[in-house]
């Protein structure tokens, strides 16, 4: 079975995000005064092939996030896993 995995990575909430601040300021300059809590992150999409159980996929994705895709010192991650037809 094949699976579509969507990983979202962003800086931890406690960490100041200079990119997010710059983009917020730019949006304010465009007149969007009600924008707050903007964070710039990364989106990674991949397929995991030849695994039968969703929980095995989750296990592998979790490990890949910990080891390479995210840096747990500064980043949080989140993912969705969908079964591919």
């Amino acid at each position, binding site marked *: 079975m094949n699976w579509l995995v969507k990983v979202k990575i962003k800086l931890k909430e406690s960490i100041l995000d200079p990119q997010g601040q710059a983009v917020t300021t730019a949006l304010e300059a465009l007149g969007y005064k009600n924008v707050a809590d903007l964070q710039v992150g990364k989106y990674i999409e991949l397929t995991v092939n030849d695994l039968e159980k969703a929980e095995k996929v989750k296990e592998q994705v979790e490990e890949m996030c910990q080891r*390479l895709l995210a840096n747990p*010192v*500064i980043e949080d991650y989140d993912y969705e896993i969908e079964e591919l037809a």
Partner: protein
Amino acid sequence: MKFAVITFPGSNCDRDVYHVTSNVFQVATDMLWYGERKDLSCYDTVILPGGFSYGDYLRSGAIARFSPVMEDVIEYARAGGLVLGICNGFQILMEAGLLPGAMKVNDSLKFVCRQVKIRVENKETAFTGSIKPGEVLEMPIAHREGNYYLDRAGLEQLEANNQIIFRYLNQEENPNGSLANIAGICNRERNVLGLMPHPERAAEEILGSADGSKIFTSLLESLSRGES
């Protein structure tokens, strides 16, 4: 005495480091290729140079950290071998877990390339043993991800163990917004050191500053005293 400089795909300071160690300081230096396993035990120091390993894809140092030779660097460091990481080399050492912390993008969001003044906070490393604590060194930085971050508990540990070796002189001099003006740190065992400024680009008067040579001089003096 023998040094090794590791070349990763995208390293661009490997030749500069080689020039300084082999030509300026006359130390036999091997350039090692990232993709080959290597017994490093014959080297007195292993240097990870600056550059843009793997194009800084994903995060600076994140992919280089899994290069075959890094397994040997990790083993060498764990056995007490001296490892110096400069700029991207520092980033690789953090990704490899040999140094604590991580780099965020500079507060200015810009790549900053200029001379900076850093203060030597601690001489209790092989890399700073011959420098007076408090001495100010001038050397260039060139990076976009040098905004050092570590959580509060981690910072307290760094401070308590005197692992902060270099700081930018003050807030104004800090080019990237790093926590506590940190420019360079070492591990708890003090054999692994990483710094963002480039001592190899400031090791000869003709380059505008020879302050960086004090780090290499310290290293050589420490090695010839047989301290490591």
